[in-house]
């Protein structure tokens, strides 16, 4: 055999395959292959970063029992169907699809692979082998809203959203309901920018808000761009989303909502290994530690921290729910009667704004 490139490749390929065969032969059971698809990059310091931290936590906790793969920058379109199918075909028995827009494709691919379990984050469609999971970010938003209500001087906040989906609408409503418990005149203006990741547009949206009298910025996009503008302009501040962003805005970040997906990923993978997995919706929050409140910024005074902690602890022990009536919608019509709390199903299909939201269009 002459040593040309083709033969070299063969040798290399065989050598690379050897350790793989070895581990297959001697391992007692096959590790569970777990796939993750992310809409953005794992380096966004926000949404996708947090999911990837959850994946790493899963590997750390379950060790050799799992083998994980991730695919990043998967758009919410036909491409994601292809990626899902490739993961399913390559032996992944549990697949986490971590963005809202993957929903229809997850349902479609899941029909073709009945022995693969799919978990769709922030979604609402389930089937035999598709479960949904989410975290109660709106609980964290209520804590942020409380801080905003206390600290805003103009009583006006801006909310940079990606798309008007229930997940985002819920967060806006929770934020303003909490702020209005402190300052009844508080208003919030949502600006939808039709993308999860366009930092320059997020920054310009923040500028547009600040130039028009808004002194608190909060965002439901994946990066720290808006907070950086808040820092640069020296307004009251903003909130980190998905992860602690104090490196970008040491003064302007009042606190952050931290996503902690790890426990859910461990629990789910373990249930697939044990054969106890079932299709359901899981929606833990502050109480379970899946949503956490980051450190408070240097500008937040002690009494505001105490108020924020009270709202946080009330949600942890169940004594406080931000979506308990009376709640009026933005036109002033009562939507939730006094003492009534919105159900999870009502929250997951939320398509109306509460009083205090200046609705887009």
């Amino acid at each position, binding site marked *: 055999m002459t040593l040309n490139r083709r033969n070299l490749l063969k040798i290399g390929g065989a050598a690379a395959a050897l350790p793989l065969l070895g581990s297959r032969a001697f391992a007692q059971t096959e590790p569970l292959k777990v796939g993750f698809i992310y809409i953005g990059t794992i*380096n966004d310091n926000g949404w996708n970063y947090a999911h990837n931290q959850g994946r790493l936590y899963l590997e750390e906790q379950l060790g050799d029992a799992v083998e994980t793969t991730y695919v990043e920058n998967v758009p919410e379109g036909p491409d994601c169907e292809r990626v899902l199918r490739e993961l399913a075909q390559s032996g992944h028995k549990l697949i986490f699809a971590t963005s809202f827009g993957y929903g229809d494709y997850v349902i479609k691919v899941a029909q073709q692979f009945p022995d693969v379990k799919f978990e769709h984050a922030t979604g609402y469609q389930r089937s035999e082998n598709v479960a949904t999971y989410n975290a109660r970010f709106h609980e964290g938003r209520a804590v942020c809203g409380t801080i905003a209500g206390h600290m805003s001087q103009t009583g006006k906040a801006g909310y940079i959203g990606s798309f008007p989906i229930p997940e985002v609408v819920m967060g806006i409503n929770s934020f303003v309901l909490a702020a209005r418990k402190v300052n009844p005149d508080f208003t919030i203006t949502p600006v939808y920018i039709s993308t999860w990741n366009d930092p320059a547009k997020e920054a310009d949206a923040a500028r547009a808000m600040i130039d028009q009298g*808004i002194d608190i910025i909060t965002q439901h996009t994946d990066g720290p761009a808006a907070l950086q503008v808040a820092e640069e302009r020296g307004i009251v501040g903003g909130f980190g989303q998905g992860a602690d962003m104090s490196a970008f805005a040491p003064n302007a970040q009042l606190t952050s909502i931290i996503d902690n997906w790890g426990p859910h990923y461990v629990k789910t993978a373990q249930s697939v290994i044990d054969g106890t997995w079932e299709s359901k919706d899981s929606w833990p929050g502050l109480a379970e530690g899946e949503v956490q409140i980051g450190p408070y910024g240097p500008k937040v005074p002690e009494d505001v921290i105490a108020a924020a902690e009270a709202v946080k602890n009330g949600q942890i022990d169940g004594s406080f729910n931000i979506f308990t009536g009376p709640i009026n919608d933005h036109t002033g019509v009562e939507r939730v009667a006094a003492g009534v709390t919105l159900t999870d199903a009502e929250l997951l299909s939320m398509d109306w704004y509460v009083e205090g939201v200046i609705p*887009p269009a």
Partner: protein
Amino acid sequence: MTPELVVAIIVTVVGASTPILIAALGELVVEKSGVLNLGVEGMMLVGAITAFVVAFTTGNHYLAILLAAAAGVATSLIFGFLTLSLSANQTATGLALTIFGTGFSALAGQGYSARPVTLLGPLFPAELAAHPVWRVLFGYSALVYFSLVLVVAVWWFLKKTRAGLILRAVGENDLSAHSIGYSVVGVRYAAVAFGGAMAGIAGACFPLLLTPQWAERMTAGRGWIAVALVVFASWRPFRLLAGAYLFGLVMTMELYAKAGGGPLSAIPAELWAAMPYIATIVVLVLISIRRDASTNAPACLGKPFLPSS
């Protein structure tokens, strides 16, 4: 609307317009030489990550801009080699360059996304730059003034200099230019490198002018807007200036309208996002129904130079 708000809007519009103006001026020169480089988005991303890394490690913004330009040139020369020396298809190679630049910048940017830098400060002293009204003229960083000077420089070069005339000749009729002794490939290499340098600087605008961070794909399609803008401007530098600011105005007014809740906020976000492209199509239609149509696009645009055939 208060004067302060008008000033604030103008300042934001200028920021949003500057990168597309710089990138489009580079692409205009490239296209005038008869080459279509669709890799602007990719070259911008390479420039953006280069500028970010240099600004982060050295803290020197001007060095960051310079090296971003150099990185843009290096990236553009890959395109130049494939299309000019090897006569590869320009459209396909340009698209490949965008894919390459996106991937390369993401790879090079690993580990840099959790790091902030500072924006390039204003060129003029704070008394002028921070003045509530005069900042509309003096409140910008050097990148903005550079982009305006560049408009005049490109116009003057193409219209008034011998070198500009040769470049246009190469773009209009490469075989004739070749037959009277000009190096078609040499001129085109120079144009492509210039386009790369400008795309690199346009990329540098993202971490240094707009949002002081690195995020993958942070140019978010503005390279494509720059390509559309060249057509929109029918290859004229001053029309391009107007177009860039019009596109910047559209991109910015969307956000101000929504944040302020005025009547314009009723326009759906999708329509706002599509406006630059709709405007380009409208301009193309207007150009083509005019009597003296088709005189503006360089005649050899996108054609490989094959003197022997």
